[in-house]
């Protein structure tokens, strides 16, 4: 409080400077008058009395200054004067100002843009209250299931609900696609079935209407719907009277009871939520891990405490239900961290790269400022001679650099509005909705505060560096000297060190950028083993109530395949459960091999399960290695068969001869039928994040029909031109079927790695900027040194030095600095690329050829940057330069 008052006091003194000054004058006048009167009273003449009083008082002006100092006016006043001075010097040399502000703005802007992503994706992916106490809960079966497969068995959830002491609330949900019937048309929409307490766990209340009640979790009482805000706006025009009305979902009538607020979109932006009503039989199921679960920790319970409690819980279940629960570990992870496995390394790498760009920019600017300081030596010496202390000079320099960095910060903020929008729009909307927080990428308060802090911090540190660099001015010596000033050896060393650091940062950034771009290139070609060109994909989901048995499902899809295959221009039509590049992991299953149980219990073999129609392998041009693929003879009545991937064959039948062997899904005692392996096909990489191809078991669709499949068509011309024909075929079979996810496979492949592509582009930009900045740095220091040495060069030339010697002299300096920088940078770059390779698996690997290439490139750039100043040195006329002072 005291502090605040005294600041106000100072400001008052500053703004009412005249009034305060007058008051001080009056006060001192009064004193002197009294003193004069006092002396006059004892008989001095008026003249004498006045002289005596002034003598006794001392230097009036000096004490006035001390009074000002005491009131604290001076510091602010001199700061303003310094800022004014800084502004004037900036205006006087606009070239320098523009270059330095732009360089800094580039560095600061890069950081602001990347931080806006870090802020949205890592720090605030969701806007839920008390986000850190929300956790995902699932059962880990000890096989690599990918992050999509985090499920829990319904009966285990019931046990966990009734017995846990760590969760305030535990809720479950499942995605569900619906056919929304509106005015005779059926539209496919994505919804979510949720427990009645779902919204309570998030502690959100509806924007209108009500939430679900516990009674609505009963089958039969569950025909109520809560709409998402977006779907309410899009489909119902934001009409508040929709509450209480009914809609048709998959042919059943549902009543609208609530609307959620705008920013609630968990688990992904779905259109609506319905109650998750499980039958008693489904509720008691312990074999299928079928539910997603989410919980809120009790206040005061940490994640690790909850983890320990869950470990105890899983052990108890393992003892009680060894048949189903052996080897299952109930696991939890903070909601915020669910996607960290992808986002954290990527965005931290980007932020680090942006930080490096800023460091480079700072080194460049420091070099520019230091160079200017040489020219200003006389001014500084004059200031010192007139009594400016080191602190006062420091204030001058810091206020100047703060001025640059502030201007740069403002420029960066202005630019970041555009760059952040570009970043946000750079990824297809259909894809980004799966990345929580992506829509939140914007320049908000956090980003502004971050940018301003970075700008001011940079300005302050640069100013401080300038102070340290120009300390110990000797006015006596400097003022006596003629010429533009000299550079001491120590100072030249500092500036050389800055160039070395720039070369170092540049190499590291280039290598990081190169590795990322190379990784992206590899990712783009990662989807090997199939040909995505000229393939159309369409997702189809049959409603449960009208397609209740396998015969109906099979009939629909057989008609669909026949209908689409007969379209002219369609070469192959087929079905698959999970097409490549879907960004969804395939279902994983254990399997048992017939014959000797060669594998230990802990090595229960597992594989991805795919269900495919006969033409699938031809549609994607997946090669057949041994045996045969499915045919129409593999129907529901014929022998059960399977096709496996080459990777699976090599792993489990390393000596070959997999066809003919029998496997079955599940453990030894499972009731699944034995499948005879009839063929081996080439490996297909499912998604970009899979470190390698996984073993895959394909089952024929006719033997295990599924309601949700993806239709793939290989066409002879542009695949998108077949969309309406496919629609017509589907409508002819069943009017009530909705089509989703219509896209060409090629585009799907490109979209699926969009985020990595953006990263590659950003890193590429950073690398180019780094190269440009460091070559500018080398150029700046060398031309400076040539200018300094004009005299010396003149003497050398006069004494008979050849242009070649001069070229060697100047270029030698450039190469020496670059070499030192590279010697330091190469081990750093190797270490950093190793770290990157381990963090961003499957994307980055250490590449020494690239390292060598960039090292050579930097040498070339240094040579180029040194050549211009060297040419200038050769062009020196000895007569002119010797006269030049």
């Amino acid at each position, binding site marked *: 409080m*005291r502090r605040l*008052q*005294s600041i106000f*006091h100072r400001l008052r003194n500053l703004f009412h400077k005249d009034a305060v000054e007058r*008051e*001080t004058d*009056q*006060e*001192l006048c*009064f*004193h002197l*008058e*009294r*003193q004069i*009167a006092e002396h006059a009273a004892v008989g001095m003449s008026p003249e004498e009395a006045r002289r005596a009083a002034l003598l*006794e*008082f*001392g*230097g*009036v002006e*000096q*004490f006035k200054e*001390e*009074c000002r*100092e*005491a*009131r*604290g006016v001076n510091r602010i006043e001199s700061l303003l004067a310094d800022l004014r001075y800084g502004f004037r010097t900036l205006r006087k040399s606009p070239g320098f100002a523009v270059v330095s502000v732009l360089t800094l703005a580039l560095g600061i802007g890069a950081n602001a843009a990347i931080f806006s992503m870090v802020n949205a994706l890592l720090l605030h992916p969701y806007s839920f209250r008390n986000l850190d106490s929300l956790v995902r809960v699932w059962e880990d079966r000890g096989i690599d299931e990918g992050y999509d497969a985090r499920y829990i068995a319904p009966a285990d959830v019931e046990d966990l609900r009734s017995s846990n002491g760590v969760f305030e609330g535990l809720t479950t949900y499942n995605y569900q696609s619906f056919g929304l019937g509106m005015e005779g048309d059926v539209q496919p929409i994505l919804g979510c079935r949720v427990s009645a307490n779902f919204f309570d766990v998030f502690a959100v209340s509806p924007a209108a209407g009500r939430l679900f009640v516990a009674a609505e979790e009963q089958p039969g009482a569950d025909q109520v719907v809560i709409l998402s805000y977006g779907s309410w706006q899009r489909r119902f025009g934001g009409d508040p009277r929709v509450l209480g009305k009914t809609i048709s979902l998959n042919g059943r009538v549902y009543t609208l009871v609530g609307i959620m607020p705008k920013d609630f979109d968990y688990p992904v932006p779905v259109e609506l939520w319905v109650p998750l009503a499980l039958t008693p039989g489904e509720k008691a199921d312990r074999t299928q891990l079928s539910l997603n679960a989410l919980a809120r920790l009790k206040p005061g319970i940490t994640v690790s405490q909850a983890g320990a409690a869950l470990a105890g819980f899983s052990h108890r279940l393992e003892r009680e239900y060894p048949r189903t629960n052996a080897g299952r570990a109930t696991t939890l992870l903070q909601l915020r961290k669910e996607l960290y496995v992808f986002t954290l390394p990527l965005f931290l790498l980007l932020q680090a790269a942006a930080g490096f760009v800023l460091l480079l920019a700072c080194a460049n600017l420091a070099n520019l400022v230091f160079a200017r300081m040489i020219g200003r030596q006389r001014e500084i010496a004059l200031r010192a001679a007139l009594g400016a202390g080191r602190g006062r000079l420091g204030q001058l320099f810091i206020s100047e650099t703060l001025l640059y960095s502030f201007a740069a910060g403002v420029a960066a903020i202005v630019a970041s509005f555009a760059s952040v929008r570009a970043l946000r729009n750079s990824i297809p909307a259909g894809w980004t909705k799966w990345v929580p927080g992506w829509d939140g990428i914007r320049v908000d308060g956090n980003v502004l505060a971050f940018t301003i802090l970075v700008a001011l911090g940079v300005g302050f540190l640069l100013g401080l560096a300038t102070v340290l660099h120009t300390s110990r001015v000797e006015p006596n010596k400097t003022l006596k000297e003629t010429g533009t000033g000299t550079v001491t050896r120590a100072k030249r060393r500092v500036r050389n060190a800055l160039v070395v650091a720039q070369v170092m940062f540049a190499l590291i950034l280039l290598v990081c950028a190169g590795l990322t771009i190379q990784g992206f290139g590899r990712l783009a070609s990662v989807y090997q083993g199939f040909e995505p060109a000229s393939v159309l994909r369409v997702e189809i989901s049959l409603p449960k109530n009208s397609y209740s048995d396998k015969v109906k499902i099979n009939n629909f899809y057989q008609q669909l395949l026949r209908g689409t295959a007969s379209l002219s221009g369609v070469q192959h039509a087929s079905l698959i459960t999970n097409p490549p590049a879907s960004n969804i992991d395939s279902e994983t299953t254990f399997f048992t091999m017939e014959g000797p149980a060669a594998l230990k219990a802990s090595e229960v073999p597992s594989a991805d399960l795919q269900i495919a129609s006969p033409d699938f392998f031809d549609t994607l041009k997946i090669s057949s290695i041994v045996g045969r693929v499915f045919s129409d003879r593999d129907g529901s009545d014929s022998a059960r068969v399977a096709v496996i991937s080459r990777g699976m064959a090599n792993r489990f039948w390393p000596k070959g001869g997999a066809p003919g062997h029998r496997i079955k899904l599940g453990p030894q005692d499972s009731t699944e039928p034995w499948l005879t392996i009839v063929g081996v096909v080439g490996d297909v990489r499912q998604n970009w994040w899979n470190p390698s191809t996984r073993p895959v078991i394909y089952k024929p669709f006719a033997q295990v029909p599924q309601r949700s499949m993806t239709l793939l068509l290989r066409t002879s011309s542009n695949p998108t031109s077949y969309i309406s024909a496919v629609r017509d075929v589907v409508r002819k079979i069943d009017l009530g079927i909705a089509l989703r996810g219509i896209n060409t496979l090629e585009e799907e492949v490109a979209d699926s790695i969009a985020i990595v592509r953006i990263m590659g582009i950003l890193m590429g930009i950073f690398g180019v900027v780094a190269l440009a900045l460091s070559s500018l740095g080398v150029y700046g220091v060398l031309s400076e040194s040539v200018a300094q040495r004009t005299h010396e060069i003149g003497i050398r030339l006069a004494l008979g030095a050849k242009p070649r010697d001069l070229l060697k002299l100047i270029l030698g300096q450039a190469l020496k600095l670059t070499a030192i920088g590279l010697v330091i940078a190469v081990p750093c770059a190797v270490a950093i690329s190793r770290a990157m390779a381990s963090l961003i698996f499957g994307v980055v690997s250490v590449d020494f050829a690239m390292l060598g290439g960039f090292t050579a490139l930097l040498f070339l750039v240094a040579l180029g940057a040194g050549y211009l100043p060297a040419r200038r040195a050769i062009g020196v006329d000895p007569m002119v330069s010797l006269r030049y002072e």
Partner: protein
Amino acid sequence: MSKPTDLVQGTLDLLILKSIALAPMHGWAIAQRIRHVSKDVLQVNQGALYPALHRLEQQHWITAEWGESENNRRAKYYSLTKSGKKYLQSEQANWERLSAAIGLVLKRA
């Protein structure tokens, strides 16, 4: 002979605070009072008094108010604030302890 400005650092503040403890005073009167009370031993450098007053005001130990002087002129009167009173008490106690201790050493050692 020592000059009055050689007063121990901070002592001038103490003298000013003590002088205006009873009634508000203007600068000239403070200087006079210190001289009179100390029987002309302590002669405050008159000019140096004002920076000290302004500093004490900045620190909120004293406040200033313009008033009518004894010869009917406008003068700036200084008086103690609440925190100034507390500060004076603690500083006076400190000073007494210190001078007593120095006295002891000078007598006994």
